[in-house]
């Protein structure tokens, strides 16, 4: 079943069309990465999904049209994480920040406390709870913003370049946590990025450029279109590049996204 449906999206800034007759469907419980270079229209698409951009289209989330009267109902089920967490923060401690949305929804304090414990354990935020979110590093800020989204126990998680400021090791850990979350709770994840390294745990990759879908496919087959991705300035993950080269020499049979598995395949 499609949890997100965008039909014939038309959107423009002034006279410039960002999207013209764009359609996309996303299935429940999947992790879809939407990648594209700067100016491809990723953030506009996030705004359309959040109901923050006026557009002429038929956008449906969980069977509800994204129109003013449905916005609160939809936003209760969708967690958003943006590229610049500073603009998202409203409070002076990480703990307050995590609680803020639920306090606004008049959720009981005992429930909020329980959820803060769960989320801070999941994202390893326990030591930061009393810190001021503005004084944290870029990566920590993005983790807090992600925590705020997870506090709502969303059915859909939309990440707009949300892992951009996190260092490689931490990002890898976080991607694994998100994959587990996606698998266990059947949460649909839509991640917008220009870094294809972040896509390796996804089920599907959609590559955008100038408001059009250039590539759309599941892993790892989608990387057969590697040339198209390179042409618009996207770098394919190292493991993909390596396994493609090894395939030429007959050392592996297929593209491998996981480095450990790739090494094992070569070793065999």
């Amino acid at each position: 079943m499609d949890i997100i449906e965008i039909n014939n999206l038309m959107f423009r800034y002034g006279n410039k069309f960002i999207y013209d007759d764009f359609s996309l469907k996303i299935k429940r419980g999947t992790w879809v990465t939407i990648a594209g270079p700067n100016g491809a229209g990723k953030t506009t698409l996030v705004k359309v999904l959040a109901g923050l951009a006026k557009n002429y289209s038929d956008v449906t989330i969980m069977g509800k049209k994204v129109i003013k009267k449905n916005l609160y109902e939809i936003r209760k089920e969708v967690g958003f994480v943006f590229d610049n967490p500073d603009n998202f923060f409203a409070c002076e401690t990480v703990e307050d920040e995590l609680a803020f949305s639920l306090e606004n929804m008049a959720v009981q304090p005992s429930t909020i406390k329980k959820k803060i414990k769960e989320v801070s354990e999941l994202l390893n935020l326990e030591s930061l709870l009393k810190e001021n979110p503005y004084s944290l590093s870029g990566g920590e800020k993005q983790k807090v913003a992600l925590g705020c989204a997870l506090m709502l126990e969303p059915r859909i998680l939309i990440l707009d370049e949300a892992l951009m400021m996190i260092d490689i090791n931490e990002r890898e850990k976080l991607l694994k946590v998100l994959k587990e979350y996606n698998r266990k709770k059947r949460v649909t994840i839509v991640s917008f990025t220009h870094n294809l390294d972040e896509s390796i745990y996804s089920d599907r990759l959609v590559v955008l450029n100038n408001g059009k879908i250039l590539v759309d496919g599941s892993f790892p087959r989608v990387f057969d279109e590697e040339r198209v991705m390179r042409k618009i300035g996207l770098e394919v993950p190292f493991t993909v590049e390596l396994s493609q080269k090894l395939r030429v020499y007959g050392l592996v049979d297929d593209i491998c996204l996981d480095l450990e598995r790739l090494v094992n395949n070569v070793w065999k």
Partner: protein
Amino acid sequence: MKSNHQFFRYVTGNSKLHLMNSKMKIIWFILLIINFLIIKDIFSLIICLLFLMFIILQSKINIKIYMQNLIRIYPIYIIVFVGSFLINHNILNGFFDVLKTILIIVLFLVLTFTTSLSEIAWGIECVLRPMEKIGISVSNFSLRIAFSIKFISTLFEKFYEVRKSMAYRGLAYGKNKLKSFNRMVIPSINLSYKLSRQTIMAMKLRFYGYSKKRTNYHENKVTKFDKTLVFIDIVLLYVVIWLGWS
């Protein structure tokens, strides 16, 4: 601790002031503001100043942070002094009003340094709750006040960002302050406008104004210290009226 701590930004801490109950703190704050506003004589001013110094010590926040913030807004004192002098034609009155202004600003700093925004909002909401009976959405109103306070500190930060970026591009602020200030005004306004739009967007996504009532998940209990401070406020109010108005 950050030495260049920004205006009206919460400083993480564990002092008695940090742990005050939000409702009691707002009541204490309002009473003390009234005290400062009605001061008419030098003795009351000295008593209030001593009390405020005690409060600053209780906050366990480096006094340098208070001083830096007070110095940063020196144009306000000049405006108050000139305004007071023009109205009263008396230099001493001008100094007196400047001192009163400093007391009020320090009190605001104490409140915002030791209270997180959500606690300020909650405190205001608790104090104003009776107004709900006449149909006023107290929750929304109190959050708006809290965000206005946050916006002031953010504006200061943005102004310093613009100042820095201008300096990198060769515009020295120190040489011709008025001229360089003019060049900073438009970018600062632009940045603030952008920031306010982003804040509105974030608040929409975070259910601001969704429910008529909010909850507060970690309200501090009322302690003897809270009650004592409010009691001292009432005593001070009596003293200020007795010394200055009788």
